[in-house]
């Protein structure tokens, strides 16, 4: 009975792993970010660089000591962001945002944005690298 359960658990884990592997393969790798980690940041928009090759948001985040640290949130190309539902007018300086993304490998205050929302929870970008936005 124990071995049966083990096999079932192993099989389930394999299925889940395989499905996740498919998701991982489907994304383009972006050098410089640790895609195995995810961080959540709350901050205030300073500027949106609405340019190719990749749009990025510069925003201030309060650290443990209460200092404002300037972060960069990298998105995707201008056309991909338009397909994803974000325009140059979506965010303006002073907007409060929540960024979920991968941190920079170098430990710098940078994130590859996976999900971008307003502080009130309104979704701005669901997944800037999802293929169906292309």
């Amino acid at each position, binding site marked *: *009975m124990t*071995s*049966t359960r083990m*096999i*079932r658990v*192993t*099989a*389930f884990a*394999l*299925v889940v792993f*395989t*499905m996740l*592997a*498919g998701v991982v*393969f*489907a994304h*383009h*790798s*972006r*050098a*410089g*970010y640790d895609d195995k980690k995810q961080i959540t940041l709350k901050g205030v928009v300073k500027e949106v*660089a609405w*340019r*190719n*090759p*990749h749009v*990025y948001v510069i925003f201030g985040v309060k650290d443990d000591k209460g200092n404002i640290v300037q972060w*960069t949130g*990298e998105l995707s*190309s*201008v*056309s*991909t962001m*338009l*397909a*994803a*539902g*974000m*325009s140059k007018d979506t965010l303006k300086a002073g907007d409060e945002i929540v960024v979920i993304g991968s941190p*920079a*490998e*170098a*430990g*710098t205050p*940078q994130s590859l944005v996976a999900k971008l929302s307003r502080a009130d929870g309104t*979704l701005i*970008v*669901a*997944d800037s690298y*999802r*293929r*169906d*936005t*292309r």
Partner: protein
Amino acid sequence: MKLEVRKSLIVSTFLVLAAVISSSAAFAQEGRERDVRPPALPSITPPEGWKQCPRCQNNDDRRKARVNYKVEGHEFKPQDLSGVWGYDGVGGDRGPTFRTPPPLTEWGKERRQATMGKLNDKGEHVVSKDTSGLGGASRINCDPMGYPRLYTYNYGFEFVQLPDRVLQFFELNHTWRTIWTDGRKLPANPPEPHWMGWNIGHWEGDTFVVESNGFDERSWIDGSEPDGGWPHSDEMRVVERYHRMNYGTLEVQLTVNDPKTYTQPWVTKQSNISLVPGTELWENFCVPSDYDTFTNDVYLPATGVKQ
């Protein structure tokens, strides 16, 4: 007990196989609207009377446009190639159009080696010598991609047919090439190399055949994974064959003849490029100052690489 274990094994194997097949099938269709989930958010609507750019559509927009523009079963003229074609490379990002080259000559091997960049301590390809692609590891200076690399990197192109020439406009890098159809021959010794080549075209039945030579040998035929690119010489000649199979599909095959670089002609598989209704070309320039800013402010700090 044994029977139960056996049953469980069979079910488990079936589940794993099903997951592998579904995952592989999804992966194999990369660049071909593989993701059929509805988008989480609608795309940005273009100004009234204007259309979206080819990559400004999400897959939901594309599905709707194919219905609205009645692509399925639409009548067409085989010798009319007008329209916007493709949006996401040919055969998916970076191939498989030029994935498997014929054997390189000695000269070709040297050129190929010269395209390889640098690795970091972890063995990752972080500094590319690509000066014209869109790779994350490169310090792009916006050199022209040239042809046929621009074909493989297709962000959407449009054919405009005139009595004496066919113009091919490209969304990526906002450039074009002229394919002369007035009966002239390719120059035996082109007076200057062209990034996009010297191009002539003619019809063979319903197939539009484009022949080119006089290429600038600084461009790559295509980038290669995980680093570098496939080189060519200034002796390269390219033959392209375009056949409109139906209103919504263009079948294309390329042959690269470059005996200085490859010991055999490089014949690509036949690729189908889809019409992208509801779109028009916008302006996707490669702007050197924008790429510089991105490289210095975002890419290099994130990687910790010093170039």
